[in-house]
């Protein structure tokens, strides 16, 4: 029986009031509710404040390079599909530096859960615009305002028919834990964009700003209706829909490798008899 304590309590380097605390709490709840022990979980992160999350939870950890979470998660999952792989990183890491990997991961639909701590700003580097900062957002580095339009990860993911596309808010911990648990159980890529205030560097998209806007999808909402999902994915204004926006049952990427039907790659040896037969073909 897995308990919350198994995932430990650690001192963090985050600012008081940061949305990351609630995301970490929800993540632990979701893991416990999923019945997964720390040794069955691999946390993959990049660089950024959100990317420090794996250090504050007992689990296997690959804290790699900025933007490179998804390739690492893909390689690890292909090597050992028994691992429950969870990616945690910020909006800059996931959608900026890792943009090409994000698109490729949506196409592959590998069975990993991607938690993007989306605070619409760069926190670790002290407040520059991020890919999800709104147009016109003024920062020290963008004194004339952000000249680019905000990236819409939900719309892109729905357009690419990602397996599981959800949005939640760090201020709604129980909702978030439920969505993460669903993401973990989904057999395919689960993107969860978590709106999360940066108390130090984003004075616009604050806790209150999100709280006033986030509203759960109606009970009769059908996440398998892609046309409706596209419409919901576009909503980001006075109201921001929260919940599982889209899902489908595309087969997970790792299931398309025939050799993985025989079990994980890790632990296998080179079959020298078979290798010898292969060599014969080069004569």
């Amino acid at each position: 029986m897995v308990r919350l304590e198994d995932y430990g309590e650690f001192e963090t380097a985050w600012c008081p009031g940061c949305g990351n605390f609630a995301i970490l709490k929800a993540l632990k709840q979701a893991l416990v509710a999923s019945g997964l022990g720390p040794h069955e979980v691999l946390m993959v992160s990049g660089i950024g404040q959100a990317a420090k999350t794996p250090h504050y939870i007992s689990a296997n950890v690959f804290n790699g390079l900025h933007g490179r979470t998804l390739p690492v998660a893909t390689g690890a999952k292909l090597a050992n599909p028994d691992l429950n792989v969870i990616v945690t990183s910020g909006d800059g890491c996931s959608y900026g530096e890792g943009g090409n990997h994000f698109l490729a991961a949506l196409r592959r639909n590998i069975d990993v859960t991607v938690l993007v701590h989306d605070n619409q700003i760069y926190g670790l580097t002290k407040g520059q615009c991020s890919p999800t900062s709104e147009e016109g957002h003024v920062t020290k580095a963008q004194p004339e305002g952000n000249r680019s339009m905000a990236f819409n990860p939900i719309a892109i993911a729905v357009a690419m028919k990602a397996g599981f596309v959800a949005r939640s808010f760090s201020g709604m911990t129980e909702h978030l834990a439920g969505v993460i648990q669903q993401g973990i159980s989904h057999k395919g890529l689960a993107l969860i964009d978590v709106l999360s205030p940066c108390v130090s560097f984003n004075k616009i998209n604050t806790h209150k700003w999100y709280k006033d806007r986030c509203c759960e999808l109606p009970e009769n909402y059908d996440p398998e209706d892609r046309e409706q999902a596209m419409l919901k994915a576009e909503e980001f204004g006075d109201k921001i829909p929260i919940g599982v926006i889209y899902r489908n049952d595309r087969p997970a990427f790792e299931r398309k490798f025939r050799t993985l039907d025989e079990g994980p790659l890790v632990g296998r040896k080179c079959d020298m008899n078979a290798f010898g037969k292969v060599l014969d073909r080069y004569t």
Partner: protein
Amino acid sequence: MRGSIVTEGSINILIGGEAGQGLVTIGEVLTRALIRSGYHVCVTQSYMSRIRGGHNTFAIRASMHDIDAPCESVDLLVALNAETLSLHKDEMSDRGVIVTDEAHDISDDDVIRVPFKDLASKRYYNTAALGIAGTVLGMDEELIAQVLDAQFGRKHPEAIEENRKVLRKSYEWREGAASPLPEFGKLKSAPVRLMLNGNQAIALGAISAGVKFASYYPMTPGTSIILGLVSHASELGLVVEQAEDEIAAINMALGASYAGVPSIVATSGGGFALMVEGVSLAGMIEIPIVIAIAQRPGPATGLPTRTEQGDLELALYAGHGEFPRAIYAPGNPEQCFHLTRKAVEVANKYQSPVFILTDQFLADSFRAVDQFDTGGLSSVHPADEIGGLQKPYKRFALTGDGISPRALPGMSRHLVVVDSDEHDEEGHITEDLAIRCQMVEKRLRKGEGIRSEVIPPDYDGEDESDLLLVCWGSSLGAVKETSQILRNSGLKAGVLHFPQVWPLVPEQFRDTLDAAGDIVIIEGNACGQFGKILRAETGIMIDKKILRYDGLPFTPEYVIRELQTYFPEIAEAGKE
């Protein structure tokens, strides 16, 4: 017309035409038939960066004796188009024979003008050319037919019958005709050898050493390493993934390797430039990774389908920060196989990035390789190490040799934590500067182990050389043959070939350098990169350099011509 200075008893066949004429197909068939007949071969493929048209060649040098180098003079030119005639007729040796279509306007005693349209439909002209070449070389028709069957059997069963018909007609057309070239009939005691090019040998070496995962982004001439892996993926249980870019490729491989699966990436210089950040990551998180770089001329896109040894310094210095690495530079396909195995072993033992530097020439160069004793091949198996681990497990435990015991995530209850930040023994991020220094020293201690396993350079020559030729990587064959030619002319010449170019252990070769009269370093680049490294590590400066950077591989003729600029007396040897 030119006389041949290269080793007696070899013959050089050049098949030329445009892309799409099937010259590689008949080149491979002829090569395999020669190997099955018991001969040694050295293939040089020269092609343009296009799928149709242009001018491509497939050269096969064949001999009863072991040969590892291409040569320049042509004994049999199979010209599939008129352009090949005009481009290569001046390369013909005194005994040279040209095979071409009767429609091509060339009148010479040594030209076999073939009525291709009478022998084959247009699609099978290459088979007819193959047949004529077979008759000129006195090769066994049935042997060629069998190789053809196997080449087409799987994909185009309908072509088998037609190929055989065309081959028969070609042999009939030449029946009774004399040939000025030596005969290449099947040798009585022909041992079974493998037909392998450098990249196939790297792929097979990796598989045999335990590699089960590869990721890549296509880039000539590295791609064929991956194709070699893909072709055996299902039967030998490999996962090979085409990544969205090279950055993803190396990070994917690191993810797989972290999870316990020995992994390789393959690319060329430009693709490797994108992987550099990942090399540094591998150094920091101490995850094994083998990186095969098939070099081509740069900078930037350079000459995409030609050869060069220009990325040695890139591989050596790639990655920010300081961490140990090893770089192997195989000289032929056999070394590609064994050094890739060594690379996998060293990468896994020292949990470090390890490089294989090859190049387009070697990548595409088929040779006859003696069969490997598969019974004696060991492979790495990281999962075996988990059993003896202590609790609490520390991924980066400080040890005397710097090697920390590896656990694998999900394979035990130990948690495996790695971080690209500086980290403590458990793998968690730290800014404790005392730990920082301990970790730097721990990582560098592994370098001592890597140094203790350095493969010494191979010296070929007498006890002392009046003229010592120093080289590394794929120029091995050309330089060795050069030294043989010089020795045959009475000069005390020797070769020092480095199959591993980093780290260098000067004690292994200082005596050889000190004992030599003149030393010349031979490299396929414009700046003498290895010479610079050699000087930095030994203090010995070799100021006589033979550098080639026109995109073509070294040949004995090229090396001798260049040596003559330093040593005019060598002119005599060259004229032999």
